[in-house]
Each structure stands twice: as structure tokens, then as C-alpha cells.
């Protein structure tokens, strides 16, 4: 099936709501729920599987998720964000494991915490590694089948273990499995009942490169077959390989959403800060300022200077030639904000 829903106009960085992540400065600080969003209600797509509306979650005085709204249909969607951004909390609320502090989650129009039939249409791979350690993989997966009301649980368990490249006849207990094997067991139990909504929390963790490739292909094929797959990840390259729609979550908020390539462009087009070490920082700075694309420049000491540029790619390509022409020896060019944390901060702050 290729009825992947048309993504909304993208990329669409979400303006930050007034309430930022709670950072209490005094003992009297009392967390306030995010203010109600004044915007018009989000329009729902016809084949919408999942509808999240003004979803917030706070733990004590820490806001983990703040006023997130989105709707998803069939296809793969990645929740991308740094560790602690609120991805897992969002996934857990979608699965019904956690009650929202504010807002609603609807899966096929029902609350997954209350509607047991809806839970039968959801598969989840939780982040934690815990499994029933003394069971064999086939027993663990078949139990999931029984609890989902399947008839031929052993046959289906063998099938899904095959899909994740595990041996159904392996007699060893799960406790003897490697991290990657356990991860695949978790994926198998989530697939046994052919869920229509599949939630995968960091599913590629612990897998070797070949297994990652296989799992990525599996996730893509599930999305193409009409399953609504939501994958959380903090690794940009992983998300790129999934070829998915992306929702960037940072500091508990939806910072941007859209097609991966446009999100990537949004990330690359931001101003970059680069440290340049050379034999003569002051002279090099003077030369650089005569060129274009430099938004700011600070000479730190005799060797180092920090450059702010809107076009990092051009800057990196030309800096060596510029230095050579000025007879300056280039020692080091180091991006200072190329990590995902910086990218996410930038997107949130837009």
C-alpha cells in the first residue's frame, strides 16, 4: 500500500509557546500547565490513525512534554530529538502507559488507556530491556500472541521471529541473549498480532550494522504496507535511512515537522559557529572579513578565532585556500555546534 498521508506544508517550525521547560529558580516555584493554544483546531486527515491534541506531561516541576499536537496516518514517522527531549514520554502516552497531564491521545478515535480493543491494534517496543528472562524467545513471543487473542500463536511466533532473523528453535533462555537479540525479540512480540499502529522506542539500539540495515528495511516495508509506524530516535542518520516524515522534539516541544530532507536543510541552513586555529588568528580574521558569508568573528587569542557563518559548507571548502593565499598556516577547523543538541536548540529558538 502506498496510501501514506500527504504531509502538511513543510518544514514548519513550531513557534515556542510562552511556557518554556520549567527551570525552577526559587523554592516557591509552582509549575503552571501550558496555556491553552488559541489556534484553530487541527484538521484531521481521513485515514488518521493517531490524533494527539495539546498533549502535555509534567513530573513535579519538570515539564517533559509541552502542548504537542499532531495527527498521523499510515507510513513511517520519526520522533527525532536529543536524549531527554520527551520522545519516550510522548510514545508512552500514545501507547497509554502514561496518562497525559493535559491534552488527549486518540488511537482510532479511542483512548488507548481505556479501550482494550484499541490496545489490540497497537504494538510497542519499549525502551527498557526487561523481558521474561528465563523464557525462550518463542515462548515469550507466543505468549504475546495468546494475550492478543491469536489462535495459532506458535506458528505466528515462528513467523515473526523469522522476520527479525532470530532462530525460533533456539532453546536458550532470553537471559543469555545479546542486547541486539533482545531488541529483536521485543520487535517480534510487537509484530505478532499485525498491529496497525507500531510504536518503536529507539528500536535500532544494540543492533550491529547488518541488523540495523535489516531492521530499517523492515520498518520501511511496514510503513509502505499501511502500518502507522512511529519510531523515536536521537540519531539523525538513522532517521534519514528510514526515509520518513520527521517530527523534531526538543525540550518537550514539537520544534519542527516535515519531510526528512527539508528538516535536514533547515538544520544545515542555520548559522554555524566554527573555531579556526592558525599560525596568525588576527591576520586570518582580517582576510576572512573581506570575504562574504561571515556573520561574526571573534579573535580568541594569537592562534584561535571563532567564526559565525551562514554558509558553513562554503566556508569549510574555502578556508584552506584563503589561509594559503595569506601565507597563514591552518592548524585546525572545528565546528562548535554541529551536534544534534545545538541543532535542536536552534530549531526550538526559531
Amino acid at each position, binding site marked *: 500500500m502506498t496510501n501514506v498521508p500527504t504531509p502538511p506544508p513543510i518544514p514548519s517550525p513550531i513557534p515556542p509557546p510562552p511556557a518554556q521547560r520549567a527551570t525552577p529558580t526559587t523554592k516557591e516555584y509552582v509549575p503552571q500547565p501550558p496555556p491553552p493554544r488559541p489556534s484553530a483546531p487541527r484538521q484531521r486527515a481521513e485515514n488518521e490513525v493517531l490524533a494527539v491534541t495539546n498533549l502535555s506531561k509534567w513530573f513535579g516541576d519538570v515539564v517533559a512534554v509541552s502542548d504537542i499536537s499532531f495527527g498521523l496516518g499510515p507510513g513511517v514517522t520519526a520522533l527525532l530529538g536529543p536524549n531527554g527531549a520527551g520522545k519516550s514520554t510522548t510514545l508512552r502516552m500514545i*501507547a497509554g502507559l502514561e496518562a497525559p497531564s493535559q491534552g488527549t491521545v486518540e488511537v482510532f478515535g479511542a483512548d488507548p488507556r481505556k479501550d*482494550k480493543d484499541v490496545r489490540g491494534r497497537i504494538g510497542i517496543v519499549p525502551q527498557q530491556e526487561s523481558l521474561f528472562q528465563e523464557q525462550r524467545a518463542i515462548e515469550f513471543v507466543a*505468549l504475546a500472541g495468546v*494475550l492478543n487473542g491469536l489462535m495459532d500463536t506458535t506458528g505466528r511466533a515462528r513467523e515473526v521471529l523469522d522476520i527479525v532473523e532470530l532462530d525460533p528453535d533456539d532453546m536458550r533462555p532470553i537471559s543469555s541473549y545479546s542486547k541486539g537479540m533482545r531488541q529483536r525479540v521485543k520487535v517480534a512480540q510487537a509484530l505478532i498480532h499485525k498491529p496497525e499502529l507500531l510504536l518503536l522506542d529507539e528500536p535500532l539500539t544494540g543492533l550491529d550494522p547488518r541488523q540495523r540495515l535489516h531492521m530499517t528495511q523492515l520498518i520501511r516495508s511496514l510503513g509502505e504496507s499501511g502500518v502507522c509506524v512511529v519510531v523515536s530516535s536521537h540519531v539523525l542518520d538513522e532517521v534519514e535511512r528510514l526515509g520518513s516524515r520527521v517530527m523534531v522534539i526538543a525540550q518537550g516541544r514539537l520544534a519542527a515537522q516535515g519531510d526528512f530532507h527539508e528538516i535536514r536543510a533547515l538544520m544545515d541552513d542555520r548559522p554555524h559557529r566554527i573555531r579556526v586555529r592558525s599560525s596568525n588568528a588576527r591576520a586570518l580574521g582580517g582576510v576572512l572579513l573581506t570575504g562574504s558569508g561571515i556573520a561574526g568573528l571573534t579573535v580568541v587569542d594569537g592562534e584561535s578565532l571563532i567564526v559565525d557563518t551562514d554558509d558553513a559548507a562554503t566556508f569549510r571548502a574555502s578556508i584552506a585556500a584563503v589561509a594559503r593565499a595569506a601565507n597563514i598556516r591552518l592548524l585546525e577547523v572545528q565546528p562548535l555546534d554541529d551536534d544534534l543538541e545545538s541543532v535542536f536548540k536552534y530549531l526550538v529558538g526559531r
Partner: protein
Amino acid sequence: MNTIVAMTRRIIPAVATRGRIIAMLVIGAAGIVIGVVLRRADATATDMTEFAALFGLTIFVPLVALVISTASLGSLVEDKTLVYFWLRPLGRWQISAASLLAGFAVLIPLILIPMGILGFVTGDADALQGILAGSLVGLIAYTSVFTMLGLFTQRALAWGLLYVLLWEGLVAGFSRSAGWLAIRTYTDGALSRVSGSAGSIVDPPQSATILIVTAAVAATCFLVTTWRLNTMTVD
């Protein structure tokens, strides 16, 4: 029913770990040995029944039920495997029922066999029946209470021990009104009513009261456990 049985079969190995079973068997064996020694020292059937009430119904039954039952759901919460039951298209009551059944499945032999032997050692058929009746009441009530407790706190063992020692062991023994709120009153009552001996309490509750209270405790704990499963955050 199939799903409840499947979950029960999964919970039993998590509850009946080798360490727990051995520890509980040792305690049970110690009670039987003391019973045999008392019997050989010419203790009367009444003395033996009082010992069974003191050791068996006041210490052994609640302690074994505590150790096993708090682990029924508690171990699933602790090792974060409850999610694999909780996310399935099941009624929460089915999880409650499976955890109770697992507790009963382990505790019935673990409690009734040593208590039966202790009753046999008394040499009195009425005492044997009374001890088994008291044990059964304790098994049902304590299992229900401690299974529920295991879902509310990760320190269920410590809280349960405090309850058994302080409330059941001390407060209920000193205060008649507090005694009505202690399971021990009903286990001792069942022993007295069935065996016909005075047991350790004066004026034991009527048999019907014992049955109603035991059923009410079990039903209430079952409902509270189900409610808790409905409203809790699952890791």
C-alpha cells in the same frame, strides 16, 4: 480464560524462585520439628493446637503469603515486565485474577502441607481440621491483601512485615476492637470453630462472619488491584 491461565503460568516462576521456596520450606520445617518435640514432651492436644495457632497462623501463614504474594505483581512492576501484560487487549481484572491465581497456586502447597503436617502431629483429628481451616482463611485473605500491596509500593515486603508484626501481632492482640480489623482474628476464629477448642482468642467470630469477612477482604483487594492497574503509570 486462556489468557488468565497463560499469565498465571508466566507469573508463577517469577514468584516461586528457588530462594523463596527454600526459605519458606525451612521455616515450615522448623515449625514441624518444634511441634514434634513438643509432642514427644507429652504436650496435650490443646497445647499443640495453641502452638499451631501461635506459630502457624500468626507467623508462618502471613509470612509465607507476604513473601510470595507481594512478588506476584510486585516482581512484574520491579523488573518492568508488567508492560507485556498491560498493553494487551485484556481487561485489567484478568491481570488481577492471574496474579491472585499464581499466588494461590504457589501458596496452597507451601502453606497447607506444612500446616497439615503440624495438625497431624497434634494427634487430634478436630485440631487438624481446625488448623487447615484457619490456614485456608489466612491463605485467601493474606494473599489478596499482599498481592494488592505489591502493586502499590516497591517496599511491599517491609510494609507487609510491619503490618504482620505490629498490627496483627501486637495491636490486634491487645485491643478487642482492633482485633476485628485483623485477619488473625478470623484465622484463629476458624481454628476455634472447626476444632472446637478455645484457641488463642476469647469469643471467636461466628463461622458465617468468618466466611463473609474473608470473601469481603478478597473481593475488595481484587477490586482495588484492578482499579490500581487501570489508573497506574506502567514503566
